[in-house]
């Protein structure tokens, strides 16, 4: 069994890790780092968005892949991130650090009450309940025009940073230069943090909850508490990613909270492979570029997506990571 599958043995046998264990993240992140140098600005900005989605998906997979709860309303956190960016930049609070921290705080404030209601349910009930909350947020954003800008949404100004000065650069320069590497550093840090969580005693408890809740409880795992913690962490990741994906668009609009957006997140996860730690990152990158190319070729891109999704579910249950390394499966 490989090191990146969710059920990688966290234990003694892996103390002699193969160099391959590090090859996937090192090669992957190096590729993303070199990408603006080899690809044009359009594609570099796409990668910028993909990194934002990757952050969202790392959080989503903690809930789904590790804990076994499929959130079908995770777009609500993406919207929370985007609207936080919109409100703060409108108030001339432009520092990305402040925006990110605020988005994380708002996500916690939202995830705790929503989580408390949702985590008591499992399977389809959990999915439907999270979907309901995201649609509630969507309706609010759509209808409360004076506060939210209604269907037109709210503009997001280009943020600044406390760490460096970007005031003399143009938007494309910022997004393919300093902010690109800013977000890459953020993605690497958040990936590392997630890796630590999944390799902790708490992380093992999550997989136990996913596999057999009753048995986990009798072995002393606190189901509800752990599920809530996981939901909040994933909400924070969702909002941080939401800030990032909305920056190149420059707009926070209600469609970010719409169920299609949640569906896209789940699609990306299946595409990359939820049974592998790095599946979420691969899924968001492939999805983002695939969607971009497809939309420029055909207006029937959704149809194509549907076919691709069907093929993945039927033939590649472990997603693209499962193809890249067939050993990296659940637990074989």
């Amino acid at each position, binding site marked *: *069994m490989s090191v990146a599958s969710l*059920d990688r*043995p*966290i*234990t*003694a*046998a*892996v*103390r002699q890790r193969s160099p391959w264990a590090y090859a996937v993240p090192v090669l992957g992140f190096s590729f993303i780092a070199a990408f603006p140098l080899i690809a044009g600005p359009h594609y570099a900005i796409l990668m910028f968005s993909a990194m934002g989605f990757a952050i969202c998906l790392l959080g989503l997979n903690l809930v789904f892949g590790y804990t076994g709860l499929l959130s079908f309303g995770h777009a609500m956190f993406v919207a929370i991130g985007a609207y936080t960016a919109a409100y703060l930049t409108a108030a001339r609070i432009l520092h990305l650090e402040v925006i990110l921290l605020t988005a994380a705080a708002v996500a916690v404030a939202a995830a705790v009450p929503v989580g408390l209601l949702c985590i008591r349910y499992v399977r389809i009930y959990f999915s439907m309940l999270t979907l309901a909350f995201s649609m509630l947020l969507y309706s609010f954003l759509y209808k409360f025009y004076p506060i939210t800008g209604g269907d037109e949404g709210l503009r997001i100004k280009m943020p600044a940073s406390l760490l460096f000065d970007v005031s003399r650069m143009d938007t494309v320069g910022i997004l393919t230069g300093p902010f690109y590497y800013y977000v890459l550093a953020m993605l690497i840090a958040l990936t590392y*943090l997630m890796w*630590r*969580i999944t*390799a*902790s*005693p*708490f*992380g*093992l*408890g999550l*997989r*136990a909850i*996913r*596999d*057999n809740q*009753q*048995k*986990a*409880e*009798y*072995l*002393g*795992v*606190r*189901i509800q*508490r*752990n599920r809530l*913690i996981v939901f909040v962490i994933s909400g924070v990741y969702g909002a941080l990613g939401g800030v990032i994906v909305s920056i190149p668009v420059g707009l926070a609009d209600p469609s970010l909270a719409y169920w299609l957006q949640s569906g896209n997140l789940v699609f990306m996860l299946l595409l990359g492979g939820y049974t592998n730690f790095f599946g979420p990152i691969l899924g968001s990158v492939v999805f983002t570029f695939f969607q971009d190319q497809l939309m420029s070729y055909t207006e029937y891109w959704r149809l194509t997506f549907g076919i691709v999704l069907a093929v993945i579910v039927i033939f590649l249950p472990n997603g693209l990571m499962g193809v890249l390394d067939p050993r990296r499966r*659940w*637990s*074989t």
Partner: protein
Amino acid sequence: MVHVSILQASELKKFYGAFCALDGVSLSIGQGEHVSIIGPNGAGKTTLVNVLTGLLSPSAGSVTFRGRDIARLDPVRLSRLGMARSFQLVNIFPQLSVRDTIALAAISTLGLGGRLLSSLQKNNAVWDIVERVSALFGLSSKLEQPAKNLSQGDKKLLDVASAFALRPEIILLDEPTSGVSTADKSNIMQVLVRAAKETGIKAIIQVEHDMDIVFGYSSRIIAVHEGKILADGSPEAIRARADVMAAVVGKL
């Protein structure tokens, strides 16, 4: 031996709708006892164990463990108090390896379940427990196998081993040998009894159908019939009771 009571149940009743599954059961389990609960299908054996371990709350009556009323305590608190159980049907984590399954219990024993960022891999206290428990249960060579790939007998052993890794004072086993071959049965029982001695478990309560095992391993037998205790005594005393043998075993 002085009877030091660990677990007491008094006047337990459990209704499923109008059906009375437990009808005023009282018992007291003492230190050093290996108690088998026997009875025909539907007698209320599993219901009794489920009530004793908090899976079901009783309709009436109380369960006292180490001086506390535990009838409405959740499983996590029970495990901390020192009570563990295994289940009648194989109850494992299909995707988790043997090592991780036992580690999970060790984590609870050591109170590490809330650690989000500490490395499990580097926690030697956990791996010490895993090593010792897996050796006791003969699972040392299968540590890296996912539980779903184990044989039926090993699945049963893993289920019981993970309960033992909680280092409980008392352990309730719901048919630990059901669904395994006769050869595996005695192996499981021998491993179990030896493990109980070595880990210092104070009492074992076992639901059991197999009369060879019941009379071969128990120090005390409680016969349940139609939600009531029909007899409670040593194996010799139970064997002498023709009515019990008729009701439970079906032979005179």
